[in-house]
């Protein structure tokens, strides 16, 4: 019983994207929720199959961009109109056409930054340590193998039953993952 509590989950190995996709669908149909799949390249529909629908990332990027643009313009306006207005080539202090390029660049800058950082944040990266790394075969997840993980925390999880269930799905192998 003790080692059972120590179990993080069960990791099933497949050799083709179609297989793991199918497995994921069936597992979810079977009522499993706390699952994840690991593949050497993005597999169409896998995330959806695992019940993951839409990400907030686009919103974050939009906000980042808006912030950047606003910041840029505010800075220029303050510097050129409010703080130290200077006569430059007979142009008015608030010569907005000249401000456009800078505002554009700041917009892109912050949007791009929020895209990458947002992605990392939502993915909870960096996470150098993860239980699945315990499984020696998992190294192949970055080569040519496809894995489906069902976590022990899943209410429907039962070491024996789940293992059997996974083997029925046609896994090439099922491994226990220590926490």
């Amino acid at each position, binding site marked *: 019983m003790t080692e059972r509590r120590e179990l993080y989950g069960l990791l099933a190995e497949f050799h083709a994207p179609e297989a793991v996709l199918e497995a994921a669908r069936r597992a979810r149909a079977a009522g499993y929720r706390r699952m994840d799949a690991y593949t050497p390249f993005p597999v169409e529909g896998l995330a959806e199959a695992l019940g993951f629908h839409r990400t907030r990332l686009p919103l974050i990027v939009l906000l980042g961009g808006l912030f950047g643009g606003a910041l840029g313009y505010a800075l220029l306006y303050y510097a050129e109109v409010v703080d*130290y*207005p200077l006569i430059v080539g007979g142009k008015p202090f608030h010569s907005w056409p000249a401000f456009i390029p800078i505002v554009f660049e700041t917009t892109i800058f912050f949007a791009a930054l929020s895209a990458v950082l947002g992605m990392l944040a939502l993915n909870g990266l*960096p*996470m*150098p*340590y993860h239980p699945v*790394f*315990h*499984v*020696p075969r*998992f*190294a192949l997840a970055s080569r040519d193998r496809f894995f489906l993980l069902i976590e022990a925390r899943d209410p429907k999880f039962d070491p024996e039953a789940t293992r059997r269930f996974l083997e029925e799905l046609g896994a090439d192998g099922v491994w226990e993952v220590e926490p």
Partner: protein
Amino acid sequence: MAQIFHRSTNVIAKVSILGSVFLIAAATWVLAALNRSPYVTQVGVAREQPVPFSHKHHVKQLGIDCRYCHTSVEESRFAGIPSTETCMTCHSQIHATSPMLELVRESWRTDRPIPWTRVYDLPDFVYFDHSIHVKKGVACVTCHGPVDEMPLVWKSSTLHMEWCLSCHRQPELYIRPREYVFRTDWTPHEDQRELGRRLVREYAIDRPEKLTDCSVCHR
């Protein structure tokens, strides 16, 4: 494969990312602060002088007017540092033998100037004119601080450009009636803003945008 990293690294990694952000912020803040700190600006640092001349004594206790020594302050860009002669007018009688004043007497004998240490030293590309400031009601103490409280003089303003601008942009906050320019003990009886606005009009002080033209100070 086996784990490469220890559990703890997860936390460390995340923390260090946030940490570095704070670190950079902190570094910039420190730089900015340092640049305005007495260490750099020497504000409030009493400067050693070859002769321990006390403004406190001469101004407060003896009540000598600034112009007695700084003679050209009203007609020249340079306020003037008193000649040895000026010192000797009194000190040939008073404290005529004081060891503290030996250097002064020596200078008088040998005709060699006294090497004072500059306290207020503008960069060579900045042109400041005392006469016009005095004329427009900028008091000595406004920039030089409570000189009458200084045994050895220290710098009481950063002389940073931003400091100059603060007054050139809003002279009304700092100027006072001409007659009180050389007074160390003067305080406005009315609201400074009110007074300032009136004086700006009276003394025909230029508009801020004119006062902040580059060539006003840089040539």
